């Protein structure tokens, strides 16, 4: 069955122009230019809401984890009163990082360089040998760890913004929140958790290659053919006859929505005794049978690939976080998430399902990285300057801020760059 796709009206409100990103095409320098990369850090990563962790990673007072916002190291902490802080991991004295571990539990962070000690809410306890500091030059209150001025969470996902003002997290998430809801509502207890470790991989290419690829439904039919052939899944899921949809959700967020593709399988599963029991339990919790049915049919393990602009993806049963390290170097964390309230066996099965396709040895992940390598080599060609993003432009459906097309269409990438232009164009 081919989805019904109406001819789109003209695109309203063209965003600001940029020499290297224009309507429906991207210049090769967008992936190669160091100055542009620095601007992206400032205009995108230091301005919008950036995912920094999950509440389950800092569940107890004193819990902390370290991560980065753009390239800046931060510590996500939970203080003794339950408050969550996102502190810059930089001693206010001689700039050394004060926390070296990936995660742990501590009420204090002590810089080993000159012994300054900070509370997990960022306050400086006191400088060491404090008699050497005269109150005229120094107050402890003036040398607390710097912090992200805004921290908020949605359904357990913690975000921070280095900008003191701007839209709220809820405004930023927009319609991406609908998919986060589907993901979290599926867990029997209504919450998900991390804690099963992470796949970590890097590639020598620009961060946007991964942001684009996670919501690119055109490539699986080709890049992942070996997986489809050996796993018994038909590559037709991503062929011209697929019923799946690609969408831009507004504000740079995007989705590949496989739910129609998975519906026959999910309806069969829902009709079993186990499926009906799951439906009863979820209906009781959500108080709405129709919503419970929708959540269960969404599957949650491969119902959709979501991109939360600019660098968070929810794919399969993983939270994927893309870290720009340099214009041509990217690090990626894949955190499999577990369902609170589900049996151990079910959560273990989620890990095995994740490993089958994702990560540095997965059945699909390495093929994407190989393609990024080839893109980077090809981008060295001069004289062929532009990468087009026009696929499905004239068969998309406009739905408020969102635009929908066939699963192989390029609404997700166009939506991503529309937001990119709003943020980057504003600087010019």
């Amino acid at each position, binding site marked *: 069955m081919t989805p019904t796709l109406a001819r789109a009206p003209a695109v309203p409100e063209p965003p600001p122009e940029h020499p290297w990103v224009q309507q429906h095409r991207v210049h090769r320098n967008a992936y190669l230019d160091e100055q542009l990369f620095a601007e992206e850090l400032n205009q995108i990563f230091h301005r919008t809401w950036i995912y920094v962790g999950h509440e389950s990673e800092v569940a107890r007072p004193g819990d902390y984890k370290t991560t980065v916002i753009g390239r800046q190291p931060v510590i996500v902490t939970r203080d003794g009163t339950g408050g969550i802080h996102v502190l810059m991991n930089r001693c206010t004295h001689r700039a050394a990082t004060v926390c070296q571990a990936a995660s742990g539990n501590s009420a204090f962070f002590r810089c080993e360089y000159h012994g300054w000690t900070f509370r997990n809410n960022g306050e400086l306890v006191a400088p060491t040998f404090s008699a050497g500091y005269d109150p005229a030059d120094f107050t402890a209150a003036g040398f607390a760890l710097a912090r992200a001025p805004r921290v908020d969470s949605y359904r357990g996902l913690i975000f921070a913004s280095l900008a003191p003002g701007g839209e709220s997290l809820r405004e930023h998430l927009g319609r991406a929140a609908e998919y986060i809801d589907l993901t979290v509502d599926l867990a029997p207890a209504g919450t998900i958790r991390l804690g099963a*470790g992470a796949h970590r991989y890097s590639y020598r290419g620009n961060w946007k290659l991964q942001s684009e690829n996670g919501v690119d439904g055109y490539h699986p039919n080709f890049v992942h053919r070996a997986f489809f*052939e*050996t796993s018994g899944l038909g590559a037709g899921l991503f062929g011209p006859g697929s019923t799946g949809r690609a969408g831009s959700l507004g504000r740079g967020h995007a989705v590949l929505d496989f739910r129609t593709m998975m519906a026959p399988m999910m309806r069969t599963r829902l009709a079993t005794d186990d499926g009906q029991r799951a439906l009863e339990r979820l209906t009781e919790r959500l108080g709405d049978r129709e919503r419970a049915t929708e959540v269960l049919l969404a599957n949650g393990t491969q119902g959709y690939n979501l991109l939360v602009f600019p660098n968070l993806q929810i794919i399969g049963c993983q939270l994927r976080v893309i870290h720009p390290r340099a214009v041509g170097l990217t690090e990626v964390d894949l955190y499999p998430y577990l369902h609170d309230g589900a049996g*151990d066996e079910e959560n273990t099965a989620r890990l095995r399902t994740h490993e089958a396709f994702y990560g540095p*040895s997965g*059945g699909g992940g390495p093929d994407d990285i190989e393609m990024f390598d080839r893109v980077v080599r090809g981008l060295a060609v001069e004289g062929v300057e532009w990468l087009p993003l026009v696929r499905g432009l004239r068969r998309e459906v406009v739905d408020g801020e969102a635009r929908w097309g066939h699963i192989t269409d390029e609404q997700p990438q166009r939506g991503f760059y529309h937001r990119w232009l709003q943020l980057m164009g504003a600087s010019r």
Partner: protein
Amino acid sequence: MTTTKLMRRADAEDFVYAEAALLDGGRFGEWLELFAEDGVYWVPANEADNDPERHVSIIYDTRDGLADRIARYQLGRVVQEVPSRTLHLVGNVRVVEDAEPDVVEVTAAMVLYEVHGARTTVHPAQCRYLLTPGPQGWRIVLKKVAFLDNDQYFPNLAYLF
């Protein structure tokens, strides 16, 4: 002092060297035959050791999963279009006390070189085997490859270790 060992160190060395030769020679079908029917191939993530039921792994393959993996690699698509060439340098082979009546534990150190196109990567690893005797010789119940750098960011690991 260990009293009864099913396997002598020289036999363990022969086994892991022959296994390395199969991998480096691309003889993956023969390598798969080394695994027992219920054999497991495990490459932990993030740490040297954790509970694979509760922690994600880089690979946690049953024999069937391993067969699918080999079939996929042998199609020669995308990342395998230019197959990785490997050199498994294995040493420090030791036979640990018998794990169970019919199972022997062997540990070894490995330095693994991978050449993929213009890139050569080196991964040090500790290997642990559980082996059981069978009519065709020793069979692998478990092969665990714990990369020393498994808490770091990896390049592609789309080959066999």
